[in-house]
C-alpha cells in the first residue's frame, strides 16, 4: 500500500502543470471557447509534450503508461480546466482500440493518436438511455461481410472534428437487453455519417452524430460489446474523477484566496466563522474526493464486477464533492462568482458538466446499491 508518486510521475505532473500554467491561461482558454471549444494548436502542444501516446502501447509509438500516469495528467488538465478532449481520445478511445482492435485497426489508428494527428472518440450516448449503458437503439447489420450502422449518438466530444468514432450498436435483442451489443469503429468521412457540432456548457466542443447505413469495422462482437463499452466508460470516469480533483483543488485555492482578500465590515470575510466552517466542509469534500479518485484509478485493473462497483462508489463521492465545492465556491464569492469575467464560474460550470457525464450521482448510488455485498471497505 503506497500512495506516493514515482519520480517519473512527478516529472510528468510538472511538465503538464508547467504547460497549463504557461500556455493555457484564462485568456487563451476564453479565446478557444470563442472559436468553438477545441484548439488544434493546443492539441499539438499536448502531443509535443508526449501526452497523446501516454496510454498507447509502445509497439504503436506510445509510452504504454498506466492509470496512475493518466490520473496525474488529468489532475493537471483539470486544474487548468483544459477544454481539449484528452481523456476521450488518449485514454478512453485508446483503451478500447488497444483492447479490442485487430492488429490492422490498431496499426491504423494508435500511432496516429500517439502523434496527435488522429482524433478517435467514443460515441455512445443515446436519447432514451440517459445513464443506462445497455440501452442501445443504434443497430448494426452485416451484409456480404460489411457491417453497416444505423442510429444516432449524442454529445460526442469534438464529434464534428473527430476522425473516427467507437460506436456501440445492437446486432440483436431488444433496446435495453444486455446481450447483443457490439462495438464498431466508424470513420467520420464514411458514407451516411452526419454531424452537428455545438459548444457544451463549459465551453468545450461536442456534436450530435448520426449514422445512415454507414460502413463500420467490427471491434468487439455481441458477446463482448457491452463489456467493452463499460470498460471504456470506467476509464472515462476514473479520468474524470482526477480531472475533477484538479479542478476542485484549484477552485478551492481561488476561493480561499478570495476569502483572505475580500473585506466586508472592515475585515476579511475569511474571518467569519460561518464561512470558515464552510471552508472546512469544502476541504472535507475535496479530500474525500481525492481519496476516491485514487481509489477509482487504482481499481481500474480489477475484475469487471469489482471494478464497476468501485468506479460507481468513486463517482458517487466525486459527484457529491463536485456539486458541493462548486456551489459553495460561487456562494462564498458572492456576486463576482456569478460573472463570466471571473474565473470561478468557469470551474463551477466545468464541474457541473463532469457531474452530469457518464452517470450522475444518483445513478451511481443506484449502481452501488445494486452491487452491494455483505462486507464493505476498500478491500472488500
Amino acid at each position, binding site marked *: 500500500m503506497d500512495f506516493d508518486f514515482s519520480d517519473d510521475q512527478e516529472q510528468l505532473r510538472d511538465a503538464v502543470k508547467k504547460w497549463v500554467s504557461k500556455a493555457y491561461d484564462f485568456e487563451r482558454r476564453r479565446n478557444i471557447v470563442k472559436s468553438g471549444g477545441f484548439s488544434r494548436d493546443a492539441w499539438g502542444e499536448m502531443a509535443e509534450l508526449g501526452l497523446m501516446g501516454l496510454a498507447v502501447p509502445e509497439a504503436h509509438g506510445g509510452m504504454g503508461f498506466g492509470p496512475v500516469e493518466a490520473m496525474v495528467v488529468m489532475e493537471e488538465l483539470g486544474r487548468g480546466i483544459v477544454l481539449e478532449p484528452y481523456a476521450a481520445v488518449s485514454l478512453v478511445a485508446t483503451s478500447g482500440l488497444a483492447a479490442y482492435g485487430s492488429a490492422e485497426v490498431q496499426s491504423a489508428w494508435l500511432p496516429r493518436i500517439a502523434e496527435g494527428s488522429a482524433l478517435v472518440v467514443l460515441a455512445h*450516448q443515446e*436519447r*432514451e*438511455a*440517459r*445513464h*443506462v449503458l*445497455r*440501452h442501445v437503439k443504434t443497430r448494426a447489420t452485416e451484409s456480404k461481410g460489411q457491417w453497416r450502422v444505423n442510429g444516432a449518438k*449524442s*454529445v460526442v466530444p469534438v464529434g464534428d472534428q473527430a476522425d473516427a468514432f467507437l460506436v456501440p450498436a445492437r446486432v440483436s435483442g431488444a*433496446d*435495453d437487453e444486455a446481450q447483443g451489443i457490439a462495438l464498431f469503429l466508424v470513420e467520420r468521412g464514411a458514407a451516411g455519417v452526419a454531424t*452537428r457540432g*455545438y*459548444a*457544451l*456548457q463549459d*465551453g468545450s466542443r*461536442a456534436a*450530435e452524430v448520426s449514422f445512415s447505413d454507414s460502413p463500420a469495422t467490427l471491434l468487439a462482437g455481441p458477446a463482448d460489446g457491452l463489456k467493452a463499452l463499460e470498460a471504456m466508460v470506467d476509464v472515462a470516469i476514473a479520468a474524470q474523477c482526477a480531472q475533477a480533483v484538479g479542478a476542485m483543488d484549484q477552485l478551492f485555492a481561488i476561493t480561499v484566496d478570495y476569502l483572505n482578500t475580500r473585506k*466586508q*465590515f472592515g475585515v476579511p470575510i475569511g474571518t*467569519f466563522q*460561518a*464561512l470558515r466552517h464552510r471552508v472546512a466542509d469544502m476541504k472535507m469534500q475535496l479530500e474525500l474526493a481525492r481519496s476516491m479518485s485514487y481509489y477509482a484509478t487504482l481499481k481500474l485493473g480489477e475484475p469487471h464486477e469489482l471494478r464497476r462497483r468501485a468506479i460507481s462508489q468513486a463517482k458517487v463521492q466525486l459527484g457529491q464533492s463536485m456539486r458541493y465545492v462548486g*456551489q459553495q465556491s*460561487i*456562494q462564498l464569492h*458572492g*456576486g463576482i*462568482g*456569478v*460573472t*463570466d*469575467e471571473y474565473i470561478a*464560474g*468557469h470551474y*463551477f*460550470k466545468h464541474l*457541473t*458538466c463532469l457531474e*452530469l*457525464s457518464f452517470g*450522475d450521482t*444518483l445513478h451511481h*448510488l*443506484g449502481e452501488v446499491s445494486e452491487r452491494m455485498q455483505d462486507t464493505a471497505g476498500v478491500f472488500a
Partner: protein
Amino acid sequence: MDLNFTAEELAFRDEVRTWVRAHLPQDIAHKVHNDLRLTKDDLQRWARILGKKGWHGYGWPKEFGGPGWNAVQKHLFEEECALAGAPRIVPFGPVMVAPVIMAFGTPEQHRRFLPGIMSGEVWWSQGYSEPGSGSDLASLKTRAERKGDKYIVNGQKTWTTLGQYGDWIFCLVRTDTSGKPQTGISFLLIDMKSPGITVRPIITLDGEHEVNEVFFDNVEVPAENLVGEENKGWTYAKYLLAHERTNIADVNRAKRELERLKRIAKAERSGGRPLIDDLRFRDQIAQLEVDIVALEMMVLRVLSAERGGKKALDVAALLKIRGSEIQQRYTELMMLAAGPYALPFIYEAMEAGWQGDYVGAMHCAPLASTYFNMRKTTIYGGSNEVQRNIVAQMTLGV
C-alpha cells in the same frame, strides 16, 4: 383556523384568473412556461397591460391609484399570474421605489413619478450595491454633493438588474461621511439619460446580460429628486426591505416550476422508461413537493396574520432563505433530469421560435443556464448568510 379561502377570496381569485388568462399574451406565456428568453418588449408589454387595468402597482393603496388589495388578495394575484405563465413584474418601479415615494416623497413627487410606474411606461432600476459593498451595504461610497439646487453624483453602482433598459434609477448615495456609515446616506431619484451616466453590461456565467455596472461621472441631479430628508436614506431603504414580505419566497413560481419539472421527468427517459417512474429520481421530486407545500404553508400563515392586521410573523428572513434554496433545487433537478442533454449550450435555442435542431428536446436547452443563473438567488437581496445572521439575532436577542 381554516385552511380554505373565503367565498369572497375565491370569487376574487376567479376574477383575477379570468382576467389574467384573457389578457396575458400567449407568446409571452409560452416563453415563461418553457423558460425561454424574455425581451424588454415582453416585459414591458405585460407591464402596460397590467398598468391599463391598474394592476401593475398591484400592492398600492387606493389613494395612490392602486387596487387597495389586502395581503391575501395580493398573494392570489401573484399566484394567478405565476401559474398562468406571466413574467415576474419587474419590481424596481412598482414594488420597490413606489412605496418609498408614497411614504416619504412629496405630493409633487407622487404626481410626477407614480403614474409612469403604474402604467408600466417608465422603467426603473435599483442603485444600491457597489463593488466594495456587498453584504455590507452601508459601506457604500457613491457621493452626492449638494451644489445649489443640484446634487453632483460621482461613483459606481453594480449588479443593476436590467439597468440597460432603465429610464430612471433610485440610488442610495453618500451625502455625509462624518458619522456612522448608516447616517450619511440619502435616497436619490436619478434620470438615467443624464449626462455622465454610463451603463456597462456584466455578463453572468450563463452568458446572459441581466446585470450592469452603472458609472456616475459628475452627474447633475436636481435637488427636488431627493426623497425625504437628506441623510435619512438608510431608514427609507430599510422600509423598502421590510415592505416586501412574502413574495420574496416566490412559492407560486415554485409551484409552477414543480409542474414543469414533472413534465420534463415524464418526457425524459431512462433506459427507455419515463424518468418519473424511476423511484430514485421520483423521490427527489417528492421531497421537493413536501418542501414547497411547507413553504406555502409558511407563506399562508404570514398572509393570514397580515390580513388580520395582527403583528406579522417575523419570518421574512426564513422565507428568503427557504425560497431561494427551493428555487435552486428545482432548477438543479430539472438539469439532472435531462442529464447529458442539459450539457449543450446553444444560445439561440433559448429563443422562442428557434428553427434549429434541438439537442434532445426544446425543454433541455435552458436547463443548465437557468441552474447557473439561479446561483444568484442565495447571494442577492441580502445573502442567505446575512439572512441567517438576522434570524439568529432575532432568536437569540443579541
